[in-house]
């Protein structure tokens, strides 16, 4: 029972921490972010397992985490509000070519992040070629280019 409770506690704590840290925390990871991610995994692994390295403990923990995932996804599907609370909502950062500075600042996104997404996804060279930029629930930035023919 203890390992199941440990699994649920770590799952809930990580969920709250990642909601606090915002969408952009690990959305586009640098080398250093990747190292932090590995350290996080190692730290939580120790708290999850304790001193019990048995196979059954491992199976129980994996089953706990996967069941929590499935149950939460079912809950989110039934209740849109839960879905919003747990995964957030998309946010427009560039509206018809205009940077929405206040939103960018609150979401810790800068102009360069938007230009990077524009270059990588559409090969765009300038901000005026961007019609919309949206900070997605995943933390990534999606770009809708201007229609050049218009």
């Amino acid at each position, binding site marked *: 029972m203890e390992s199941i409770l440990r699994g649920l506690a770590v799952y809930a704590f990580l969920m709250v921490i990642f*909601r*606090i840290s*915002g969408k952009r925390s690990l959305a586009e990871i640098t080398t250093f972010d990747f190292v932090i991610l590995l350290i996080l995994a190692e730290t939580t692994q120790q708290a999850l397992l304790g001193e019990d390295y048995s196979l059954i403990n491992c199976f129980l923990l994996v089953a706990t985490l996967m069941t929590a995932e499935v149950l939460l996804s079912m809950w989110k599907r039934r209740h849109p509000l839960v879905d*919003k609370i747990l995964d957030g*909502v998309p*946010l427009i950062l560039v509206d018809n070519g205009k940077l929405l500075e206040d939103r960018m600042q609150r979401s810790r996104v800068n102009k360069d992040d938007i230009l990077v997404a524009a270059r990588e996804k559409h090969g765009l060279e300038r901000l005026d070629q961007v019609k919309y930029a949206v900070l997605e629930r995943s933390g990534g930035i999606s770009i809708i280019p201007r229609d050049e023919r218009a």
Partner: protein
Amino acid sequence: MAASQEGRFEVGEDAEFQRLAWRFQNVGFVLLLLFLAAGMLGIFGGGGIFARTTASAGEITIDYDRFARFSTSSELEVTFLPQAPSPHLIFDRRFFDGVDIEKILPAPLAMSEEGSNVHLIFSSVDDGFPMTVKIFYKPHHFGPLHGHVKTNGAGPSFTQFISP
């Protein structure tokens, strides 16, 4: 005003909810800082100015972790004036029931249970000099852990809070 609000771009935006989410993030970040500050001060054990404390009564002084952690080593140091010929300590059994003893230094010659007490008997020492006994243990419950130690007369009681 963002495009979604004008109905031009279907993106599922919810500006009101987003404002609440930002507020949650700001409050959450402050709570996170308070959590870390509490950790630095030793509220969750593992060192820090509030982590250890002392208590004394009669001829016994104890030094222990006020805050300790579940299944993590903790140390209780008992200093007392030994009584010849066989110095001994009498512990409240509740303490021994709540922990796994790792080692006791110096090792007791004998350990016995009598009712709600556990007796530790040590080899004889020079009369008149204080003796220090160190007990290393791991708590196996979380929440408050109570204990009491004495020789023949009075002795201090102590309470540790064990973090999960």
